[in-house]
């Protein structure tokens, strides 16, 4: 009925397998140390089940449902971003227009209009928002608000919509189908977060940017980079049109840019003196806390794939 290409379905099964193993380890941990409080870890794992169930479901239901879903994620992310950063009260009217960019941007995606998709936010919305702001007639704080609004729409609408555009690229690897590249991007980005954390815990000594993120170390970064590059070389030919060599480049790109996305959103939170951007996802924080790396990896992976194969 749903006709999922074989390699995409194996990949999904593998992810579910990893999740079962992780949940099993958690249960075993709690059983061996009944007095330790694992509430947050349990919440995190349970949220992973939900997130993966939702994403796999929408991917299985087809391109259009998945595009609407990623549009909805953009909406949640934009709303969260504009809620935590300071804006002027009168900006709410401009913010209303910023929201309207989401259905249009994802409409261009659904019709596969690459030319419009790629310039709509950086050209048209970029020029439109200050114009709408002028009509408000309030010039105090104009530059600040214009900057915030542009950055917000670029991060949460433009960058995230690249995930959706992966779904409408002509399929070049029939065994992976349109789901393959998206799965690859999502999995590699999250796997990179896990690897950098793991290597950092295991070997971490030299801090990279102690002011922003005291737990990030060179050991974690390089360990993650090597692991993800290697795994990517193996997985890319299965899930994407990329070759083994190109898969290595894609892996290194995802690892490095994922790190940057993470620390960019961390810097935003540090500046605002908050710990999480929201509490939509129990154990994880807000939607931006979960999608921080993805905001950077999605457009960079997309354009690498697009440049090398389309």
């Amino acid at each position: 009925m749903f006709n999922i290409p074989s390699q995409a379905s194996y990949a999904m099964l593998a992810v579910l397998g990893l999740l079962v193993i992780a949940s099993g380890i958690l249960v075993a941990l709690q059983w061996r140390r009944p007095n330790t409080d694992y509430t947050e870890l349990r919440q995190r794992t349970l949220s992973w089940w939900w997130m993966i169930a939702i994403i796999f479901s929408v991917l299985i239901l087809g391109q259009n449902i998945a595009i609407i879903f990623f549009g909805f994620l953009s909406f949640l992310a934009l709303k969260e971003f504009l809620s935590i950063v300071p804006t002027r009260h009168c900006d709410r009217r401009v913010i209303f227009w910023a929201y309207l960019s989401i259905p249009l941007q994802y409409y261009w995606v659904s019709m596969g209009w690459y030319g419009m998709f790629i310039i709509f936010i950086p050209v048209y919305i970029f020029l439109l928002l200050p114009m709408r702001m002028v009509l408000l007639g309030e010039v105090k704080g104009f530059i600040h608000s214009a900057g915030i609004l542009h950055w917000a729409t670029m991060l949460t609408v433009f960058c995230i919509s690249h995930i959706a555009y992966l779904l409408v690229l002509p399929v070049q690897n029939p065994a992976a189908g349109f789901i393959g590249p998206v799965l690859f991007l999502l999995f590699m980005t999250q796997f990179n977060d896990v690897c950098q954390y793991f290597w950092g815990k295991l070997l971490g000594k030299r801090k990279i940017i102690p002011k922003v993120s005291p737990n990030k170390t060179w050991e974690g970064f390089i360990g993650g980079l090597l692991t993800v590059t290697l795994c990517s070389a193996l997985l890319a030919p299965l899930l994407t049109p990329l070759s083994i060599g190109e898969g290595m480049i894609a892996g290194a790109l995802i690892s490095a840019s994922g790190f940057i996305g993470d620390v960019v959103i961390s810097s935003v939170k540090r500046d605002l003196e908050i710990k999480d951007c929201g509490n939509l996802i129990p154990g994880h924080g807000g939607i931006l806390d979960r999608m921080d790396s993805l905001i950077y990896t999605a457009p960079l992976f997309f354009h690498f794939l697009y440049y090398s194969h389309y």
Partner: protein
Amino acid sequence: MLINRIIKILFFALLVKPVVLILLGLNVRGRPNLPDKGPAILVANHNSHLDTLVLMSLYPLSQIHRIRPVAAADYFLQKGGFLAWLALTCIGIIPMDRSGSADRDSLFKGCHEALDNDQILILFPEGSRGQPEQMSKIKKGVFYVLKERPDTKVIPVMLHGLGRALPRNEALFVPFNCDVIIGEEIPMTEKSPAFVAAIAAAFEQLSEYCITQNQL
């Protein structure tokens, strides 16, 4: 009044909860402090019509009929018609006469009846929606209600960000996440000024947990 209860449940299930959860989005803190049964009073700061709906939506549909916002009779009921029907049937307000002509006993009669039935009141001690995200002077009403019913729990709730989503005198709704910070019970005091001060202090303390911002 089964039919009214069904209307209220449908109103919240089909309209209020989807709007609050999807178009708004809540950062709820201190949910364990939320009283699950009455007699109790939630005192909250007031910036938007959404305040009441957000507070009520914290409760499951099966409990919605027991949550009773205290609202201005002159604003909601005077003109009658749709607004009055909405306020009385869909939301189930307890009307409050703000004209100053009623004596204290009849003024709080509705509140006492509701508390006698173990219901949970929502009360905005500022009396009216103020400027966005600014506290107005707190009134003493809660103190007088509590004096008659010392077993009532008073729980402070700080709302932040709703004055931006739908401010006073604006028709355009703009989606924003908002903070809902639920504090610990405020103990009764002997005199009203101390109680008002305790409420103000609770709001002040809870506002530190807000993560949404709108000041530039």
